[in-house]
């Protein structure tokens, strides 16, 4: 089952912030983590992750820094900032409202 692109777009920010809440990461690893957790159902167009990461950086929610990897190549690692933690908290509350409403509507008596 592949998710619709609108839903993927809407969930990208909470997904990224939640992954970064667990520790610093970089674009490629974030995508792999999402694929792994969703069993491959959430599949981003890889390049589209970066404008979102840069938007978050520009809004002070994450901070990017270049780190040299073992291969000698530079990777840009992102870490969650205080503003990002607050945004993640808000996102969690909003998504909880959506999922709890849907769960109530989809109980057998409503179906």
């Amino acid at each position: 089952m592949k998710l619709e692109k609108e839903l993927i777009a809407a969930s990208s920010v909470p997904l990224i912030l939640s992954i970064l809440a667990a520790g610093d990461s970089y674009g490629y690893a974030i995508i792999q983590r999402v694929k792994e957790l969703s069993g491959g159902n959430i599949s981003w167009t890889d390049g589209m992750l970066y404008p979102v990461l840069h938007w978050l950086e520009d809004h002070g929610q994450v901070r990017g820094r270049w780190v040299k990897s073992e291969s000698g190549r530079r990777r840009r690692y992102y870490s969650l900032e205080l503003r990002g933690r607050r945004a993640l908290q808000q996102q969690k509350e909003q998504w909880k409202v959506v999922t709890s409403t849907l769960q109530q509507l989809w109980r057998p008596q409503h179906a």
Partner: protein
Amino acid sequence: MPNIDQLITEWRKTIPYGRGLGKERLEELETHLRETIERFLQSGMSEAEAFRTAVAQLGPSPAISSEFRKLDQRAWFPMKVIIGAEIALAVAMAALMTLRIAHKGSSLLLATHAFTVTLGYGTAFLIGALGICFVCQRCFSDFSITRQQSISRLTFMLSAFATCFTAIGIVLGMIWARAEWGRFWAWDPKETGGACVLAWLLLFTVAHRLQRTTGRAILLLSLFGNIIVSLAWFGGNLIAGLQSYGASSSVFALTFGVAVNLAFFLIGLAPAGCLRKAN
């Protein structure tokens, strides 16, 4: 059969580099592409197939660039102030020039020389002012790639503008000096100062264009622009010469201005966020 590096070089050419992406974003995408290719190669794909699949997975370059361009539309507040100040300076100088010609009978050539040189020098100061704002904000938080790129684009445009106007102003001044004083150039303190400002602006614009320095380095360099223009504009007044009107300059003010800019330059060398409260 081209190898991976050649294929990636070809891929880089398909990216609209100048507008939208920029050096660091492109490097980040390339790192991602290389890591995806490596994973595909480990799974047994051929180089060409791994490259093709990784590029497809990354997505179409125009769409990625277009998403980045949307980010660039959000301007940093001091940038808006500097753009406003630049427009106000140009309008004020044009009005002053018109008044001088209409009421004081100044020659059109001399008034245009004063207008263009003042606009060129004033623009150089505005780039320096942006540099000071950059240093101040950087003490509290580092700039995102997006913001650095939009600041960098503005400083390039302003430096090109300042270079053109200063060059035109100097040429007009030379023509006027030939008619009034019988010579084009005499290394008068003001003329020497003008030549130094023009040389500085040319160097700054070319360094910017060739991207030999980072956005941070360019903005720190702009503080030296403040010093050079101050010395050229007001320092010349302190030395007796044909164009001296020393009453408007003071050694103290000039020294203070130079010291302030040097202080901001040193502050700019400190790590980003040095004054930031811990999370």
